[in-house]
């Protein structure tokens, strides 16, 4: 099973971005990185826009018109597996599973900030009763 619809993606994957920004330890570091990243997901089609400078996360229709510093494209399943700690970003890019353009090095420098959140993402999915997504 995968995500049911765009709202499902925002409830699961969107929530972890919001949590990162709100986290007293990780939040200030994302603010220091200060970039914006737009994620274009497919299966199902959905968009998340994170602005780390302002600490805002936008979903779907609320995504602002402006250009993000980094734009990334992948299936929602790849994003789910990334947050479960199962995706090697370099290999995913080599295989075309993740496409990135813009300030890619700035995005890479944020990867270490994601690692402490893998466990929390998993816990969130469990709390939501979405254990189906854990076997991705």
């Amino acid at each position: 099973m995968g995500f049911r619809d765009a709202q499902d993606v925002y409830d699961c994957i969107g929530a972890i971005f919001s949590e990162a920004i709100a986290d007293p330890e990780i939040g200030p570091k994302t603010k220091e990185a200060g970039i914006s990243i737009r994620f274009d997901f497919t299966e199902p089609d959905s968009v998340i826009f994170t602005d780390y400078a302002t600490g805002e996360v936008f979903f779907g229709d609320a995504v602002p018109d402006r250009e993000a510093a980094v734009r990334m494209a992948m299936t929602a399943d790849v994003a789910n597996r990334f947050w479960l700690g199962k995706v090697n970003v370099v290999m995913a890019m080599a295989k075309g599973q993740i496409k990135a353009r813009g300030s890619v090095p700035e995005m890479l420098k944020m990867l270490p900030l994601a690692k402490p959140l893998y466990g929390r993402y998993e816990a969130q999915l469990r709390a939501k009763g979405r254990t189906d997504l854990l076997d991705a």
Partner: protein
Amino acid sequence: MTRPFDEIDVSTMAFWELSATERDARLAVLREKRPVSWQRPAEGMGSLPGSAGGGYWAVVRHADVVTVSRDPETYSSAQGYMIEDIPLEVLESAGSFLGMDHPRHTQLRRLVSVAFSPRRVRALEERIQARATMLVDDLLEQGEGDFVATLAKPLPSLTFGEMMGLGDGREHLVELADNMVSYNDPEFLQGRDGLTHLLETLVAIYGEAAALCELRRAEPGEDILSGMVTAEVDGERLTDEDIAAFLVLLSVAANDTTRQSISHGMRALCAFPDQRALLASDVEAHLPKAVEEIVRWATPVMTFRRTATRDAELGGMPVSAGDKVVMLYVSANRDESAFPDPWRFDITREPQHVGFGGGGPHFCLGASLARSMLRSVFRELVTRAPTLELGEPTFLVGNFIQGITKMPYRV
């Protein structure tokens, strides 16, 4: 705790752009006065979010490099191994067991170590010698040209290609491995960002690796890659990612290091004609020690980093758990207390250099192979090219590989 950064700053790119002797004049002061010094974060890739105020201990004496190398429980390799702050996610993709501690390091290294054992290398020796002879034939026939392109580069790359079973795909992979280590060099980058470049190169090698894995699974051969696709660790097959990281590590380690030793070694023999004459007077007798002196002189890998897992004292300084500790092999191999008159190239020295590392579990896996290639090539050069002269080399700029990218020769 904030500590003041040392006034002798080894973190700037300007420092690494200095000539080797200018650089060492500063390192010599550190060796004498502050052998373990606190340095501001290394320039290059830029800092990671949240890492501001960090720094590292620079270890410049031979004895301290050996101590750090042989105490992997205190000095871990699993939290980064480059002097610069490179995201661990990128390093993990590039370093394989280089960036691991026991037990994972031991398990993965064991898979390939048999291919590099002295016994296996002896079996390869004849072919390595034949290849060296052939390449020196070419060099003599051409009469003049680029020493790196004609000899220093092809010998290790052909050997590597054969061991990995790369066939025609070899040149592309070797070129990518070259690109890997050029992330600091402004001439190479042409205004591009080092990390972008590193990532693009990694992505390209990963693409190659994925294709090669598929080929080997369908039709395994006798090469190292075939061994990897069928190997199991803890009852599990290696993933394409594991194998790709292996391939990145081996392609850089196999190509960029021996090549530099060949180039720097020939340069040293030209600069010290008495040593060249001594070697020529009885090649077989002097060759083993000469090879070790060449590796000391060249120090192809200038720096590697560890991270302290617990509080310790090093060179009289208090290292705290979590501190980064950088070994400057480039300094340790010129340490006056280990090598009297260190800037004299002397093929009769007792070998104790740290050109293959300072011992311990991360000691260079390919040392036997490198020695074999160096013996073969210098046996040929000393006996068959006595009039060979070199022009001014072009050096690679960076804080990792002590590289010569081009060097004219004439016979």
